[in-house]
């Protein structure tokens, strides 16, 4: 079947086979490689996207269910250049292997969009579904706290 939705602001038509996940369709059909596949079961958050305004794991979304929806991947979180979160993560060295980074940028961008001055606890809760296997949480939290504190 063909599924039509808006991806980072543009309408796309994607070929979807049976129960394919939205993650597979984004990567394999639409060449959107920001969302990563790691655990395939919603534990790690590296495939995080924004679906109709909410951060979800794209590996757990039935692609057929994306019909008519609005999807934002890490490629679409900033308009030309990097956003404040990405700048802060660069500055603080909040990236090691980088595999979790797109998911963290998506989850954090959404947090700041709705909540411009989150506390440390709120930052940690918002990122509870994003695992950094390099355990680089210290730098990630520092980067996000600097955005919350208005240093960016």
């Amino acid at each position, binding site marked *: 079947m063909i599924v039509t939705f808006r991806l980072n602001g543009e309408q796309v038509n994607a070929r979807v086979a*049976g*129960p*394919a*996940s939205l993650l597979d369709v984004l990567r394999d059909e639409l060449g959107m490689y920001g969302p990563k596949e790691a655990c*395939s*079961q*919603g*534990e790690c*958050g590296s495939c*995080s996207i924004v*679906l109709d305004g*909410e*951060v*979800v*794991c794209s*590996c*757990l*979304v*039935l692609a*057929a*269910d994306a*019909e*008519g929806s609005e999807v934002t991947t890490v490629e679409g979180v900033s308009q030309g250049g990097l956003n404040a979160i990405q700048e802060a993560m660069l500055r603080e060295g909040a990236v090691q292997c980088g595999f979790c980074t797109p998911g963290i940028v998506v*989850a954090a961008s959404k947090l700041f969009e709705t909540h411009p001055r989150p506390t440390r606890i709120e930052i940690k*809760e*918002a990122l*509870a*579904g*994003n695992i950094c296997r390099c355990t680089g949480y210290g730098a990630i939290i520092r980067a996000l706290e600097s955005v919350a504190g208005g240093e960016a």
Partner: protein
Amino acid sequence: MVEVNFGRRRPETVVGLRRVAELKEWEGNRIGAAVTWRRVEREGPGAYAQAARTVGSPQIRNAGTIGGNLGTASPAGDGHPFLAAVDASIEVASATGRRLVPWNEFFVGPKRSSLQQGELITAVVLPERLPERHGFGKVGVRNAMVISTVCAVVTRDHDGRTTVALGSVGPTVLRVPAAEEMISAESNPSEADLAEFARLVSEGVRPITDHRSTEQYRRHAAGVLARRLLERCLR
């Protein structure tokens, strides 16, 4: 989706329910099956909202629904103890009609429900009136993204009637009638009554030893957790 991702299942036909608006309706005590944990966390009654807040991660709560939790029928489902503690029913529909299934007839075993071929979970129906006090608690190895070692809801009404429902300590969510009867009769439970309540809960659960915990620990934790939740209701 997880079963598909791991190649355990490859259904030829899938039906997307995400855009069925009727399933997201929430009117009074009838909560549509496609209501997400995120919404329950924000709009649900006390213990149900507390349970919702501990489901998975923000990503999971944004996508996961109460109907999906029921369909999985995991013994560890964090939404189940509330439904059991308040005697909720599950509304299911098929091409031929609708039926209301009491929670204790819905869950039949680990990951098994009485949902029939061709039936869809459409709503959770809570009683018209909820007990005055209720609380949810969960024991797990970390704060987020954790499957319960034990989870529980205790309710206490103005007349002393108390219910206790626990998950992860039996093949399905379960109630402990002996503990409920004993403590419901005490209008102002003493220290000894609370200890007896905890003992009866520990005795009444049916846990197993698996990779997440031991039978012995779960039994102990069930009693401690139930007592703490009761104490909160009594405050």
